[in-house]
């Protein structure tokens, strides 16, 4: 599980969402993104349910590897210890990956990968001392696959006792091979994150690699860009940060969204001609929401709810990790979220919770 810290009640300036006249009829409206239609997509969600041992995970970032292959990156994952596929008899690992073959999730094939240690399932990206790695987004640049991970440790007891250390980037130079055969290398010192947990979303636009990241308890979203050629060479040491004077030094950086979201995605929607920021909005029984902007740095609109997942009709729901997956076909835009429960323990056995869920979105 990758619980998001509750957002404090910040009071940003902004337009009034519901311009009401007192005593008049409801005239509420939102200056947010265009309306979309969204609905659960259970046929696609089955993609995550077909493995005999992988029985749940969160995160669910996707990276198009090309040639009909999509890499999925999961955070905390459960690996069944027996054919009963019971979560009470499972191994808990900090991350795993999967390869989806075929872009239509209703017909694609999915194979999951994780490590093995002492003949037991282990994290795909192994722990480093007290630190474990939760995934961020990634991108393939030529023959190099860059994967962003957050370096996390347990600061205090309990479900919410984790703390983010820093972000790091791993490089894979043979991404066409099976993940079990990948040459996975942490590019230590190659990522100048300047205290921002970089890697929430990664986007290539022309000669620039745009990488979003978070900082602070309100998950303010910052944007850095890197020279694509340098990034392809494994060098992420020279970011330009978005700030009040455009892209420049870290000293002048400013958030592009504040307060932000702990997990999200950014993609370009050609139908709208806009960039779309997808997130789960709120805390607990949340909604899937989007913001839009004309440029990757914004200005970003206020969020607009596109769907309240069925699980979020339960008061003790914990629905999070909302993201879009523009590489998927069969929908104008596919999104996922992860439903869990507030007590933090995925129900057992093989309960419906804690598997990512697909949502099918139609522009209108």
């Amino acid at each position, binding site marked *: 599980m990758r619980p998001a810290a*509750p*957002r*404090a*009640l*910040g*009071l*940003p*300036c*902004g*337009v*009034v*969402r*519901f*311009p*009401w*006249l*007192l*005593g*008049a*009829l*409801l005239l*509420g409206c*939102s200056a*947010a993104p265009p309306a979309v*239609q*969204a*609905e*659960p997509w259970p046929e696609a969600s089955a993609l995550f349910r077909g493995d005999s041992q992988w029985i749940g995970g969160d995160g669910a970032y996707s990276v198009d590897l090309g040639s009909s292959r999509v890499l999925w990156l999961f955070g905390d994952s459960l690996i069944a210890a027996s054919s009963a596929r019971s979560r009470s008899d499972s191994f808990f690992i900090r991350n795993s990956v999967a390869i989806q073959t075929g872009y239509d999730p209703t017909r694609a094939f999915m194979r999951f990968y994780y490590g093995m240690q002492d003949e037991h399932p282990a994290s795909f990206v192994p722990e480093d001392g007290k630190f474990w790695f939760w995934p961020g987004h990634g991108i393939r640049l030529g023959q190099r696959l860059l994967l962003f991970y957050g370096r996390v440790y347990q600061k205090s007891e309990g479900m919410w006792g984790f703390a983010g250390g820093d972000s790091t980037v791993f490089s894979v130079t043979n991404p066409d091979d099976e993940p079990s055969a990948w040459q996975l290398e942490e590019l230590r010192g190659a990522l100048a994150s300047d205290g921002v947990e970089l890697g929430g979303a990664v986007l290539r636009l022309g000669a620039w690699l745009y990488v979003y990241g978070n900082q602070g308890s*309100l998950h303010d979203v910052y944007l850095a860009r890197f020279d694509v050629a340098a990034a392809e060479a494994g060098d992420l040491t020279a970011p330009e940060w978005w700030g009040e004077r455009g892209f420049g030094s870290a000293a002048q950086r400013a958030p592009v969204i504040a*307060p932000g979201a702990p997990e999200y995605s950014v993609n370009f929607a050609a139908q709208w001609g806009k960039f779309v920021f997808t997130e789960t*909005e*709120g*805390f*607990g*029984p*949340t*909604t899937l*929401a989007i913001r839009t902007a004309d440029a990757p740095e914004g200005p970003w609109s*206020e*969020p*607009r*709810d*596109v*769907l*309240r997942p*069925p699980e*979020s*009709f339960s*008061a003790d729901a914990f629905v999070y990790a909302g993201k879009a997956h523009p590489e998927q076909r069969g929908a104008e835009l596919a999104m996922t979220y992860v439903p869990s429960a507030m007590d933090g323990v995925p129900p057992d056995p093989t309960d419906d919770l804690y598997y990512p869920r697909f949502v099918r979105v139609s522009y209108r």
Partner: protein
Amino acid sequence: MRAVRRACSSAVSVALCSVALCSSAPARAEWLSGPSRAISNADSASPDAPVTGYAYGPRAQVSLGGELALFSVRSARSTFRLGGSALVVFEDAQRHGALPTETLRSAFELSLAWSLTEFATRTLGPGKELELSLALGHHSALPMTDFTLGDRYHSDDVPFGAGGAYLAGDAAFRTPLGQRFLAFSRLGLRCYTNAFPDLVGAHEASDFVADAWHEGAEYRAFFELGLRLRGAGVEPLGRWYFELIQPHDDSAKPLALTRLLLGAALPGARFELTPFTALEAGHGAGIAVNRTELRFAVGVRLDAR
């Protein structure tokens, strides 16, 4: 936004002036002095009216409710009432039995009502009454025992029975019509907790509040009219209620409800019994709030006088 601010400042100005006027007249304080409002909420056709009663159609509904002024200050010019109301409703959402066992709905309010006796008489005419009220309230909807609503999920549904905690304001007006009729109307607005951060542009905070406190609605506006024939032993009455719910989620659909109630009040010394028929169209009640139905019910209400 400017209109909202202007309306708020006008309301505050009127309130302060009236309090000043009130303070210059001799006042009398009373405890437990009858209904919480001069123009009682129990006279409403609203499904949330704090009354005790039974209704059937197409499913059974038993309600236990009432209102009471805890404290009132009465002068020749106006009356303040600090009071409250409570309502618990047992309903069926699927069964058609005589006694409901499936869902529970509750509504509680603490209100401050200000009856502008002199102002209404002076500006609107003799016998007319005007009352302004503010209320803090909470309403919730729960299934009873292990009941689950079997309705299909829709992506634009409103969660949590559109309940939550709210601040409400309303204005009620009552007037005699001729010698024998008494008419009233009420216009009100409930603002749920999540609405207040939104009013200052803090949408993230609004989402957080709505999720944490399980509020599906952001605003609920209502309007009602009533007419009653007075003086006869049996007093025929008609009431019409209309409400709109603005959900918190952008993706949810607004809900509307209208209800027409026709009855005959049988006034007694301490209670009033009102057999009635009601025709209702629009959203359902409680956890069935996303259901749209046309309902016809017969029932009886018992109000304290």
